[in-house]
C-alpha cells in the first residue's frame, strides 16, 4: 500500500498544470482554448505531451471551430501512439463529418480521420467518405478526394472496391478545385499501387485542359502531372494537347512552368504506346520553353538552381535551344556558389566554335574571383571546352597559359592538371607549352598537380631537353611524396630511360627502382617497381619495354561526361522533380522490392539438384523414422524411389517488415528464397538515412522448428550500407536442437550500428518440410490419428489437380482423394528431429480450405502463407 506513494509525484509540472486546466469544471471555452494552444505549442517544439491524450480528448465536443481544429491537430499527432484511445474520438468524427450546417467542419473531420492512420479508425471512415465524395460543397468533395488517396495507403482493397469509381467521377466535377485534387489523389494512388489505376484518354485530357485554365497554381501543377501520363492515339491529339499546354509556360509559378515542360517533353518524344511527333514540330514546341526558362533565371537562387539542374536534360533533347543565349547563363557576382557551378556546367555544354570567344572572356573573369573552388571549377571547365572543341582548342589553351602566367599558386596547379588532359586529347599539338610549365616547378605543392607535371615531363621526355634535370629535381624528395606522385615519378623515369638511354638516366632509373622496391611502404608501388625491373632485365628487355611502355595511347574521349541513356530517359519522365534535380532515378527515393534476377535463379536451380542428390540418403532415414512415429501405418516405398525429384524453391514475395522510426533509418523487407540451392531467409535492407550503417548481424528467436542462422554475419557487401543504398542478402539457416517454444512465427533480430530492429515472419513451411510419400489411405489414417488441428482458408483459382501438382513440386507429398487433397510431409522440430505434418485440403468456389494436423501447434497463419506462396 505504502509503496504507491513513492510513485505518485507531488511535483506540479507543466503537464499537470495543463491537465488540471483542461479538467477543471470552472474552465470556460477561452481558457480551454488557451491551454490547448499551450499544449500544441509544446508538441510542435518536440515536448512529449502524449500523456494528456485522454484529457485533450475530453474537450473534443465543442462548437468552437478554433478549439476543434486544435484538438484535431493534437489527435493527428498522437493517435498513432494511442490507437486504443483514439477510437474514443470516432463518435465525434462521424458526427462532425455528417454535420449539416458546416461544410468546413465536415471537411475538417474527414481530413483528420484520414490522416489518423489507425486501422480501427479507418473502418469508420467509409461511410462519411462516401457521403463526402457526393457532398454538395466543393471544399468537402475536394477534401474527400484527397482522403481516398490516404485511405488507399492503409486499405487498398477497400479503396479499390468502393472508392475508385466515385473518385474518378470527380474528374468530371463542375468545380476545377475538385478536379485538380482528384487528379492529385489518383496520381498519388498510381504511385503507391505501382500500376496504372486511371488512364488519361483524349476526352479526359480535354476535360483536364478545360479545368487547367481556371484553377490555381497548385491545381494547375496537379493537373499537368496528370496530363504527363496522357498517351495520345494520334500525332494530331498530341499536337493539340501540346498547343494548349504551351499557354501554361507563361505562368509566373516555376512549378507550373516545369510541369508544363515535362508534358511537352513527353508528348514530343513519343513513347512505346503512342506515336512520335515530326522532329521539326517537336523542336518547335520545345523551343517555346526557352523564354520561360530564361525568365525563371531571374527568380531567387533556389529556384534558379532547380531550373539549372534541369536545363542539361532539356539540352539533351533539344541541343540548339539556347544556342544564342549563352549570355543568360553567365554568372552574376552575387550568385551563390551552387548556382555558379551549375551555370559553368551549362556553359561548357553551350560552348561552340562560334561563341567560344565570349565564353572564354567570361571564364577569364571568373578565374580572378576570390572563391578558390569556383576558380578551380572554371579552369576545369576551360579544359573541358578545349577537349570538346577541336577547332577552338588553341584559344582555350592560350587562356590556360595566360592563367599559368598569373603565378597564383592554385590557378597554376589546377591549370597543369587540366592541361595534362588536353595533352592526352591532342598528343603532339602543344609541345611549346611544356617549357612554360616547367618554370613553375617550385610553386607546386599539391600531389595532383605534381603528378600531372611529372606525367607530362615523362610522356614528352624525348622532346624536353632538360627532362632529366626536372625529374632529378623531383627525385630528391620522392620519399616525402604522396603515392600518386611516386607512381608517376616511377613511370616517368622509366619512360625517360627508354626514350634517352644514357648513363645518367640509367643511374636515375636505378635509384628510383631501388627506392620503390626496397624503401617504399606501398605494396602496389613495390609491385610496379618489380614489374618494370623484371621487364627491363629480361632478354631483349629494353626493346620489349619500349614497345609496351611507349605504346601509342588511345586519345581521350572527346565527349564531356553525359548521363547514361537509361537514366536520362528515366529523368526526362520526371523532369522538374526531385529526381531530375538529384539526377537519381525516382525509385531510389522510395523502398522498392528488387526485381528477381533471372540469370541468378537459373544457376541456383542447377546447384539445387546437386545438393538434393547429396542429401537423399539422409532423407530416406528420416522417412523411416517418421514411419515409426506414425505407428507403423505406412507403406514406405523402397529407398530407391524415395530420392525426391529436384526441388526448386520459389522466392516468396518480399514484404516490408521494419519501417524507419524513432531516429532509426534502416528499412527492412523480408521473405524466403533459395540460396545456393538451400532454403534461406531473404532480407532486403535499405538505408533511408544520411549516415552509413554497418555491423550487420542477424539472429533468430527460439522457434518450434529449431531454425538458427548459419552465421550471425549477414553478408551485406562490405558490411556497410551507404545512404540510399539497398542490399538484398540471403540468410541461410540450419536446424539445431533449440529449446521448444510455441509460437511458430519466426522472430528475427537484425543488429546494426544503429541498434536492433526486430520483426516476425511466417515461415513458408514447404521451405523446411520434407515430403513423406504415402498412399491416400495411409495419409488419411495418419491424419485421423494426429492432433493439433489448425485451419486456414486461402484464395485458390486453380483446380484440385493443379494444386496437387504444385504441392508436389514445392516438396510436399500430395495425393488427390475424391474431391479433397491429402498431403504428408515432415517438419523439423528442434528437440525431436522431425515430426509429421499432414493436411486435408478441399478446393471449392475459388477457395481452398486446409485442415492441418501434426506435431506442431498454432500453424494456421504459417499454413496460410505457405499455401499462398505455393499457389502463387
Amino acid at each position: 500500500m505504502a509503496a504507491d506513494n513513492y510513485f505518485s509525484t507531488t511535483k506540479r509540472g507543466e503537464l499537470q498544470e495543463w491537465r488540471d486546466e483542461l479538467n477543471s469544471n470552472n474552465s470556460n471555452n477561452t481558457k480551454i482554448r488557451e491551454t490547448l494552444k499551450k499544449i500544441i505549442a509544446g508538441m510542435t517544439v518536440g515536448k512529449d505531451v502524449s500523456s494528456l491524450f485522454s484529457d485533450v480528448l475530453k474537450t473534443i465536443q465543442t462548437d468552437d471551430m478554433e478549439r476543434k481544429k486544435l484538438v484535431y491537430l493534437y489527435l493527428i499527432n498522437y493517435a498513432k501512439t494511442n490507437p486504443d484511445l483514439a477510437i474514443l474520438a470516432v463518435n465525434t468524427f462521424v458526427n462532425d463529418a455528417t454535420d449539416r450546417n458546416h461544410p468546413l467542419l465536415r471537411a475538417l473531420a474527414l481530413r483528420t480521420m484520414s490522416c489518423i492512420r489507425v486501422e480501427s479508425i479507418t473502418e469508420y471512415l467509409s461511410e462519411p467518405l462516401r457521403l463526402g465524395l457526393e457532398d454538395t460543397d466543393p471544399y468537402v468533395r475536394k477534401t474527400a478526394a484527397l482522403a481516398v488517396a490516404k485511405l488507399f495507403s492503409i486499405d487498398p482493397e477497400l479503396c479499390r472496391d468502393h472508392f475508385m469509381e466515385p473518385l474518378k467521377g470527380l474528374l468530371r466535377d463542375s468545380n476545377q478545385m475538385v478536379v485538380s485534387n482528384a487528379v492529385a489523389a489518383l496520381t498519388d494512388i498510381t504511385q503507391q499501387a505501382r500500376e496504372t489505376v486511371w488512364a488519361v484518354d483524349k476526352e479526359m485530357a480535354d476535360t483536364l485542359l478545360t479545368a487547367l485554365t481556371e484553377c490555381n497554381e497548385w491545381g494547375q501543377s496537379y493537373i499537368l502531372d496528370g496530363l504527363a501520363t496522357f498517351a495520345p492515339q494520334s500525332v494530331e491529339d498530341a499536337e493539340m494537347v501540346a498547343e494548349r499546354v504551351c499557354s501554361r509556360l507563361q505562368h509566373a509559378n516555376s512549378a507550373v512552368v516545369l510541369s508544363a515542360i515535362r508534358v511537352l517533353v513527353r508528348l514530343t518524344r513519343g513513347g512505346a504506346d503512342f506515336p512520335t511527333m515530326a522532329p521539326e514540330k517537336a523542336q518547335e514546341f520545345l523551343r517555346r520553353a526557352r523564354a520561360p526558362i530564361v525568365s525563371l533565371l531571374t527568380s531567387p537562387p533556389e529556384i534558379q538552381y532547380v531550373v539549372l539542374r534541369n536545363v542539361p536534360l532539356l539540352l539533351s533533347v533539344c541541343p540548339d535551344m539556347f544556342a544564342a543565349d549563352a549570355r543568360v547563363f553567365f554568372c552574376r557576382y552575387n550568385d551563390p556558389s551552387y548556382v555558379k557551378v551549375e551555370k559553368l556546367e551549362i556553359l561548357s555544354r553551350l560552348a561552340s566554335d562560334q561563341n567560344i570567344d565570349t565564353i572564354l572572356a567570361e571564364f577569364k573573369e571568373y578565374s580572378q574571383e576570390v572563391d578558390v573552388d569556383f576558380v578551380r571549377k572554371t579552369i576545369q571547365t576551360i579544359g573541358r571546352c578545349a577537349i570538346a572543341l577541336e577547332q577552338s582548342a588553341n584559344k582555350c589553351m592560350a587562356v590556360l597559359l595566360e592563367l599559368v602566367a598569373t603565378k597564383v599558386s592554385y590557378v597554376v596547379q589546377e591549370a597543369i592538371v587540366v592541361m595534362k588532359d588536353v595533352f592526352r586529347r591532342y598528343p603532339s599539338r602543344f609541345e611549346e607549352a611544356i617549357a612554360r610549365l616547367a618554370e613553375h616547378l617550385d610553386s607546386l605543392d599539391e600531389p595532383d598537380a605534381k603528378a600531372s607535371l611529372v606525367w607530362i615531363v615523362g610522356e614528352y621526355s624525348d622532346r624536353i631537353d632538360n627532362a632529366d634535370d626536372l625529374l632529378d629535381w623531383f627525385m630528391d624528395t620522392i620519399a616525402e611524396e604522396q603515392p600518386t606522385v611516386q607512381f608517376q615519378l616511377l613511370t616517368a623515369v622509366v619512360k625517360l630511360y627508354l626514350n634517352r638511354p644514357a648513363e645518367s638516366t640509367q643511374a636515375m632509373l636505378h635509384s628510383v627502382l631501388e627506392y620503390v622496391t626496397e624503401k617504399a611502404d606501398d605494396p602496389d608501388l613495390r609491385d610496379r617497381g618489380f614489374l618494370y625491373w623484371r621487364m627491363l632485365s629480361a632478354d631483349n628487355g629494353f626493346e620489349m619495354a619500349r614497345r609496351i611502355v611507349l605504346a601509342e595511347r588511345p586519345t581521350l574521349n572527346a565527349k564531356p561526361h553525359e548521363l547514361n541513356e537509361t537514366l536520362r530517359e528515366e529523368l526526362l519522365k520526371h523532369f522538374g522533380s526531385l529526381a531530375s534535380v538529384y539526377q537519381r532515378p525516382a525509385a531510389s527515393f522510395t523502398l522498392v522490392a528488387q526485381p528477381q534476377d533471372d540469370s541468378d535463379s537459373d544457376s541456383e536451380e542447377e546447384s539445387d539438384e546437386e545438393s538434393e542428390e547429396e542429401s537423399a540418403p539422409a532423407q530416406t532415414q528420416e522417412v523411416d523414422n517418421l514411419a515409426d512415429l506414425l505407428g507403423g501405418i505406412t507403406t514406405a516405398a523402397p529407398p530407391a524411389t524415395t530420392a525426391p525429384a529436384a526441388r526448386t524453391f520459389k522466392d516468396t514475395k518480399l514484404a516490408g517488415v521494419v519501417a524507419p522510426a524513432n531516429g532509426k533509418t534502416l528499412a527492412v523487407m523480408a521473405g524466403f528464397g533459395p540460396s545456393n540451392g538451400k532454403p534461406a531467409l531473404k532480407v532486403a535492407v535499405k538505408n533511408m538515412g544520411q549516415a552509413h550503417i554497418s555491423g550487420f548481424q542477424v539472429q533468430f528467436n527460439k522457434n518450434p522448428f529449431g531454425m538458427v542462422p548459419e552465421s550471425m554475419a549477414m553478408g551485406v557487401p562490405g558490411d556497410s550500407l551507404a545512404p540510399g543504398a539497398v542490399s538484398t542478402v540471403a540468410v541461410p539457416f540450419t536446424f539445431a536442437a533449440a529449446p521448444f517454444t510455441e509460437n511458430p512465427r519466426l522472430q528475427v533480430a537484425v543488429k546494426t550500428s544503429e541498434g536492433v530492429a526486430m520483426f516476425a515472419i511466417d515461415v513458408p513451411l514447404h521451405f523446411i518440410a520434407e515430403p513423406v510419400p504415402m498412399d491416400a489411405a495411409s495419409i488419411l489414417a495418419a491424419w485421423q490419428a494426429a492432433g493439433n488441428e489448425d485451419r486456414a482458408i486461402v484464395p485458390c483459382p486453380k483446380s484440385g489437380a493443379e494444386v496437387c501438382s504444385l504441392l508436389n513440386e514445392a516438396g510436399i507429398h500430395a495425393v488427390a482423394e475424391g474431391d479433397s487433397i491429402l498431403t504428408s510431409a515432415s517438419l523439423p522440430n528442434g528437440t525431436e528431429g522431425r515430426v509429421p505434418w499432414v493436411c486435408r485440403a478441399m478446393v471449392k468456389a475459388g477457395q481452398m480450405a486446409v485442415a492441418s494436423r501434426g506435431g506442431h501447434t498454432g500453424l494456421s497463419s504459417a499454413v496460410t502463407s505457405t499455401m499462398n506462396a505455393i499457389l502463387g
Partner: protein
Amino acid sequence: MKFGSKGKKSITALVVGLDNSGKSSIVNQFKPKKMMVKEITPTVGFKIEEFKAAGTSWKMYDMSGQGRYRNLWSKFYQEIEAVVFVVDASDRLRMVVAREELKTVIESPELSRAPVLVLLNKTDVAGHEDSATVMDLLELPQLLASHTWTMMSASAVKDEGLEDALSWIVSSVRT
C-alpha cells in the same frame, strides 16, 4: 448523507453500462426538449453531452458499452462526481456481466466518493425483470456497501422516472 442540501451548480457524471442498455437514450431524455435528437445510433468511443436540467448544469460522459471499449471507461474517471450505471431490465442473461462491469467501475479509487445511481431501463418492455430481482442478481447491497447509491426504474422510451434520477444525483453529490 445530506438530504435537502443545496446542490452544486455543475455536475460531471459518467454514464456507463453494457452495450444496448440504453445509455445514449437515457442521456437524450435528460436533455431539455429542444436539444433532443430523434435517432440514437450505437455509440463508438464516447459522447459528451452538456446541458442544463433540474437547476444544474450537467456534463455527462456517455461511454460506449461495446465490449472492446469498456476498458477505456477508466480514462474518464478523473473529476467524475457521479456515476450512472444503466442496466437493461429485459436482458436477464447478461446481468452477471453487468455486475462484473459495475464492480470494476466502483472499485477504482477515483470513484470511491461518487454516488452511484443504478438505472433500470426498458421497464416498458414486456417480461422485464423487476427491481428486486435485479438488485439480487447484481448483488447491489454488497457491491455498493461503501458508496452512496440507489436504484431506480425508468423507461427512456416513455420518458418515465428520469426527473427523479437527476434530482437524486443533485442531492447526493457532496458539495
